[in-house]
């Protein structure tokens, strides 16, 4: 159930990111959600996005292995087991408009931008606004208004 809710969130987040022009490639190309270290969630994500579009683009789900190229990934979800290596992974990639989502307490500290929290048996999320801005894109304020907490950097 938790995985299904997180998968649904990932699909929804795509509609609340203000992608800079050209960031997602030509208009017919899919919006790719990459999943690292969370195979079961990737399966839910495939179900959640089947036949659906985000801003007229189909959605593609890629199961990633460490070392895979992230060049076409628009949203990267990093499962709990892979979170400790996130910082190193992001260090090897040029800052680009890619929403990094984690599900671990240390997620934002590792460079994540959105982190899932489970509070009172409900799935919520927190946002690190400074990480988003550093990568050259913006999040819709609708997303920010629903976030449990928005960190603006410095804390």
């Amino acid at each position, binding site marked *: 159930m938790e995985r299904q809710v997180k998968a649904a969130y990932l699909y929804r987040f795509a509609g609340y990111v203000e992608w800079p022009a050209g960031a997602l490639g030509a208009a017919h190309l899919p919006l790719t959600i990459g999943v690292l270290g969370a195979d079961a969630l990737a399966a*839910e994500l495939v179900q959640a996005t*089947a036949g659906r579009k985000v801003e007229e683009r189909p959605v593609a789900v890629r199961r990633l292995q460490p070392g895979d190229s992230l060049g076409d990934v628009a949203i990267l979800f990093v499962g709990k087991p892979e979170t400790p290596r996130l910082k190193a992974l992001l260090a090897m990639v040029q800052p680009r408009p890619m929403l990094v989502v984690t599900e671990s307490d240390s997620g934002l500290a590792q460079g994540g931008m959105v982190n899932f929290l489970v*509070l009172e*048996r409900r*799935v919520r999320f927190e946002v690190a606004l400074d990480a988003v801005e550093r990568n050259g894109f913006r999040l819709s304020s609708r997303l920010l208004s629903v976030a449990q907490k928005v960190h603006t950097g410095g804390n």
Partner: protein
Amino acid sequence: MKRAATWLGTAAVACAAAAQGAGDLAELTLEELGSIEIVSASRRPERLSEASASVYVVSGELIRRSGVRTLPEALRLAPNLQVARVDGSQYAISARGFNNAIGNKLLVLIDGRTVYTPFFSGVFWDQQDVMLEDVERIEVISGPGAALWGANAVNGVINVITRRAADSQGVLAVADAGSRDQGLALRYGGRLGDNGFFRLYAKTDRVDHTASEAAAPVADGQRRRQIGWRMDWGSAADGFTLQGDAYSGKSDERAAFGTVQIGAVETEGANLLARWTRRLGDGSDFRLQSYYSHSEREDRLVYRPRERIFDIEFQHGFARGGHRLLWGGGWRHARDDIEPALFLGFDPQRKSSRWANLFVHDDIALGEKFSAVLGAKLEHNGYTGTELLPSARLEWKPVQGHFVWSALSRAVRAPARLDRDIRLPPQPPFLIAGGPDFVSEVAKVFELGYRAQPSPRWNYSATAFRHSWDRLRSGQVPPNALVQNMIEGSTWGVEAWGEWQPASWARIGGGLVLLRKDLRVKAGSTDPSGPANLGNDPQHQWSLRAAFNLPHRQELDIAVRRVGALPQPAVPAYTTADLRYGWRVSPALELSLIGQNLFDPRHPEFNAAPGRSEIPRSVWLRLRWTP
């Protein structure tokens, strides 16, 4: 608060989701995703007797979108409630009829604390306030909840549930300034060590007075202040909560009554509540709750009650075979001191009352599609001894997403001091001299309901009900009129509502209630006014609501409602509209422009012309800041 965490809206979504998977969850909004309760696979999702009842859940999000400022106005959002604004600060609120300012058939709780006043079994709505921004949801159950909630839950139960401290962290400031009312509310929430959270709030409100239909100003405005706090450790299922509030209020100064100075109505009160919940090793859960509250009302015209209440209750829930059992008990002690004023007195002036109850509730699975819920409560009160309040319900789930239920219950409205001890005027010779033999009013209730959530985009619900009444309160011809139980009859009707989300940025909802009453005075009674005294109710009321999310972080909410004419005293039917335009300027700041009662410059909702208040159109600006 009983284990009535009726996440009806979200439970319906969660149940649908559990079967259909992430695919249909993808249609939900961010807010809805954030409100789904994820249940671990090992336990059956909680499904309680209230699911087989006529329940409407007013969510915190709906309260915010509607722009309402006070608790009674928030209750208008529930289609199964009759809410009539009597004047600047008084309301008459009921469900399924019998509405008047001393309405006694509705049980109202805030976080498990009963806020209806035992000595007249009704609610002083000008003494009940909460910080609406921190209300998680309001569960409105129309119909008898007696088997679980006790006597006086005859026509319904309103359960106001505030957010846990962990869900109300940081600073929140809300300021309202408008043509008639102003208010300021501040809240701060933080952590308590490793495992705890707290919040603290303070609010002040000023409600403007109204004018009567004869255009004379009425001294019914009110200024009030309230502070409160809440501390939680652990989680809702396994933790400890301590909370409390204190308030004081003062109405406008009223003109002298003849030669007597009657001043203003002054109110004050405070409460303290502790709740301990525990999930035990065998999967069962346990709750122990206790509260103390005191309230005072100083009204030199009508009467001056002071009341202290102490309440302690527990419940234990467990599963055995196909049964999910819930049982528990409670004890309440109330001490009141009602000083006489010009109109009313009570004899004796001071009294201590005690109530004790024991209840049992069994949710029995009868195969894949059916279940039965059997419940009974035994309640003892000082006037009529022990009352038995049984209820039986049957639930049928023909296909996923559709739910049919039926219920048979016996509910009772036990005597209150108002019935037995009232003296009008306070000194003899009396016009009304109490009712020494007044016993409980009884209702036998049959309900049939249908609820469906065919897709996450729309849901609807309809309930048909019939209450058979006996021993309703009646009077006699004065002087020395006694309060008796000589009215009987039946009330029946339909409650329905639905919600549709045509696009991700629009939601439309509506509700309808139809009510018919057939009450008569029994032979042998000399009651001069008859059933009209028991409540003034419309035969129909409906509401329509639309919420739009506009580009550039703007929101527009429109609500239209119509309430049918009231028979006696005659009040014309009215249709009115409320509007809210909101703009999120930044993640921390939201501005809203809110208008209420927009169709007519003023309209009455209750009481007799020409002295009754007219509720005027009002507009205000709201600022909401969460840094």
